[in-house]
């Protein structure tokens, strides 16, 4: 499991930095999601996120985790994620947005979707296709 080094985004790099800071939250989410085979957006204090991480580790997958509370632009990302996930029939409006899982750049959803996919037997092929699992 790798924790993305968020501070790297804040090193002054001139025009490149300015360009990346103009990037919308949704675009950033999509970019981050496609950077790795398995991407998990989480909050460090959230226990459900911990459960998702444990699930992947138990399967032998190493997801890239982005902790939104440790990211200065985390709030925007959270809002963007909420909009993305809302169309997926999440449990309830009061439920927290995280964890959100992307596999192979495509949105899978929150914990309930991930578990449903795993029980259905569709998660493993998805992981294999994304190259996160070999066996």
């Amino acid at each position, binding site marked *: 499991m790798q924790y993305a080094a968020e501070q790297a985004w804040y090193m002054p790099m001139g025009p490149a930095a300015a360009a990346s800071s103009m990037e919308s939250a949704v675009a950033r989410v999509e970019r981050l999601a496609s950077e790795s085979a398995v991407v998990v957006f989480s909050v460090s204090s959230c*226990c459900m996120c911990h*459960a*998702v991480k444990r699930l992947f580790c*138990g399967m032998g997958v190493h997801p890239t985790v982005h902790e939104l509370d440790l990211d200065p632009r985390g709030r925007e990302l959270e809002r963007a994620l909420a909009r993305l996930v809302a169309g997926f029939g999440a449990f309830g409006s009061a439920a927290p947005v995280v964890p959100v899982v992307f596999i192979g750049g495509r949105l899978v959803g929150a914990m*309930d979707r991930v*578990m449903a996919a795993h*029980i259905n*037997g569709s998660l493993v092929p998805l992981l294999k296709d994304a190259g996160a699992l070999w066996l």
Partner: protein
Amino acid sequence: MFKRTQYLLRGTVVDETPRAIRFDSVGEDRQERRQRPIIWELQPAAAAYFGELGEALIHGTCAGVNPVMIEAAYLAARPPTLEIFPSWPMSHLQQPYSANSQSVGSTDSSSAQNTMSQAELVSPVSMRTDCGQQQEVLMVTIDDYNYNQGLGPAAAATVTAPSFQQHAGGQDKRKHGSTRKDDKLLDPKTERRLAQNREAARKSRLRKKAYVQQLETGRIRLQQIEQELQRGRSQGLLIGGCSAPGDTSPGAVMFDMEYARWLDEDSKYMIELQSALQAHILDGNLGTIVEECLRHYDELFHLRGVLARSDVFHLMTGMWATQSERCFLWMAGFRPSEILKMLTPQLDPLTEQQLLGMFNLQQSSEQAEEALAQGLKQLHQSLADAVGAGPLNDGADVANYTSLMALALDRLDNLESFYREADNLRRQTLHRMRQILTTRQTARCFLSIGEYHRRLRALSSIWAARPRENFIMAENVSSTGTEFQVHQSQQNQFSGL
């Protein structure tokens, strides 16, 4: 509405003496009817059933002693709840009334006079009806009782006035009736007093009616509760014995009721499945039943979701379950991988594909269970950290205390999501099982799951009913004892756990 009320009121009359006023005997013999006027005539105290009993009793005793009077006093001495209003025809009351009107001078019959005028109130009504007099009388007075006990006297008076009009064709007719008879006696003061007495009588009638209705509803409720208890006991579910003191949140109570109903329906589905399997019906029909079973389980998970939102502790602690079930709860329910382990050997003729599917299902559910358990463990840890934060033995620092509690409350909110995920896992497992297996096999699975839980519940009641004094003797008894037989068969089931 009227008929029902009539029934209620009739039901409360208890026959204590031969002279009891029986409301339910419409065909009273003429002799009794003839006898009553005598009572009315000689003992004005008997008329006190319309109003204040005690006062009348006092006046009755002043009138002198004779056998009839004693009997009337006995009648008067009966509890007021039994004698509500007369059901005899009022025509004969003209006579005694006029007889009494002569003795108006004596103070002891003044109240009697008032009560007689109250009888008068009812009499014009009954006189107008040819048949079903009794019902008429009842209906008239029942109209009074259509209102709650909480009504003040003024309201009662204003409200009963129109009701009398409704039935009797005008209250003024009554007033005319009474003035017609009392032309000698009624001056404004007396009229006012009569009216007050009438109101007092109405109030007391209302109170009696309310009391009777309370008793009736209490009785019906008690019957319902007893029925529920019996039904629950027959299913091996211990109701009432397993609810903790602080466990009576409305969500919990409602869930308990709904769950009891769900169990009822579940047993019906089990019977249906059993008979369908034995009858070797077509796969299509069996499939319908299996789908219904699946939907039934979905309903249960929905109920549990609602409970998790309103009272997660009730769900968590398993207070809705029997004691033995509680021992084997995993996240407030069954553990999917254990159920699968139990089911797979019973489904012996499985194809390779099915075998693989079941194995994968078992493995993935185990992984999911492990992940959820880990997450829950972390939640417990963070909750403990939140509650134990700050100095514990220094004396409570109020400002920090509230923020501390707020944080702990926040963490508590996450509990609900874990139990919902666990239910989601169970639901997905059942649906996946349906996909892998044939209809017949799925039916057998549902039957097995249902039977397993039923046995677990039965174990609770058997355990609760075991003879405790003979505990030492029972240990030495060979395994022919029923408890031990059940215990051993259960042990085979529990081996997979």
